[in-house]
């Protein structure tokens, strides 16, 4: 009787431990899933927050650029046009003065003609800077060709431009974005990079229109955070976002800059 009891006891003990092991492992599993889920959700939220933060920065940079552009236009108008028109108006008043002889009159009119011509020329230049007319009339290809020519004519930089994409079917409002990106890149290469050779290539790669931009300038460490937050780069990024494309930017000190971006 005792022996049977002892055996029963042992069976109960074993079954108890098996059950205990089952239950505790099950608990560990449940807790693991519970906490994991929480953590994964938290990670997702953090990621989204980062994205939103980035979008905000882009928006901010757009606003800042807009203000700066306005400032520049205001300055151009003030320096190049207002000042000249001022002198024109002064000269016109001079014409009113009595007892002017012919040579004086001629001198004043010549002055006025010369100044109005300069003002006209300046206003045309300002308008051209704001939106190159060739872009609207002849499309992106011609626009870039003109841009490249302008840079080549300075003799400090040699720009190579190759294009195998037909931009005629491409929506006209997107031409300007690509044009501005290249303008910004070229300006950066010249101003900060002191580049002497630049190559711009448009190709179709894996079914997407792709632009490869390479210069041989000073370059910088593109892996460092503070170098990625420049206003120009942010603007380029938001334009590429707008075009529905991706970009990769690589640069190392003394190895120039390489930028590849694609767009739809």
């Amino acid at each position: 009787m005792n022996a049977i009891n002892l055996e029963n006891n042992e069976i109960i003990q074993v079954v108890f431990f098996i059950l205990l092991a089952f239950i505790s492992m099950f608990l560990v599993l449940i807790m693991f899933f519970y906490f994991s889920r929480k953590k994964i959700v938290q990670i997702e939220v953090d990621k989204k927050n980062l994205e939103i933060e980035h979008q905000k920065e882009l928006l901010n940079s757009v606003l800042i650029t807009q203000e700066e552009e306005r400032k520049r236009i205001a300055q151009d108008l003030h320096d190049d046009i207002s000042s000249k028109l001022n002198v024109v108006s002064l000269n016109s008043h001079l014409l009113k003065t009595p007892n002017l002889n012919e040579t004086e009159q001629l001198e004043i009119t010549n002055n006025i003609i010369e100044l109005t011509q300069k003002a006209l020329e300046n206003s045309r230049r300002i308008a051209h800077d704001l939106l190159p007319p060739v872009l609207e009339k002849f499309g992106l290809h011609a626009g870039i060709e003109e841009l490249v020519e302008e840079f080549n004519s300075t003799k400090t930089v040699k720009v190579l431009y190759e294009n195998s994409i037909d931009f005629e079917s491409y929506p006209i409002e997107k031409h300007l974005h690509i044009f501005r990106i290249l303008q910004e890149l070229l300006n950066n290469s010249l101003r900060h990079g002191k580049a002497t050779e630049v190559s711009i290539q448009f190709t179709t790669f894996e079914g997407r229109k792709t632009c490869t931009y390479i210069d041989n300038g000073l370059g910088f460490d593109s892996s460092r955070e503070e170098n990625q937050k420049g206003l120009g780069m942010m603007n380029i990024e938001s334009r590429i976002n707008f075009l529905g494309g991706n970009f990769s930017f690589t640069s190392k000190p003394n190895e120039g800059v390489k930028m590849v971006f694609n767009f739809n």
Partner: protein
Amino acid sequence: MHHFYELFQFVILSYFFSLLLKTRAQLFTVYVGLIVLPLFLLSRYLINPSLFFEYNLFETYLTTMPLIIYSSMHLYNNLGEKSDFYYSNLGLLFYLFTSTFIFLFYRLLVVFEIEDYINDLMININITLQYIKFAFFFYQWKLIYFNKDERN
């Protein structure tokens, strides 16, 4: 002998996880377990030495369960990022889970006195499980050895 095996496994793996785990609470748990558990087992045998000579399920349970918890903690810590010793941890967790049940069921068979038929089978299963664990370890070793700068 298995008392020493289990205690040895517990101490070594606790030390291993004490190196891997990060947060204070987790490390605290590991250290407390590392001190309290062996002391508790030792005092049990000192009070009742006869326990030392029989197969002890309570001890098996106590020495493997914390390891399973530590292992899950390590998995949780590295959720969504690159993890150190990821594969060896998986192998270990797998082995701890399965071997615990093997030992418990083996004990059940012994109690029912039918171990003779299934004894070999149980031993074979355990050996296979060990092999699977070592396959994980080997894969981990390969990863660490061949990508020294990029641990997985």
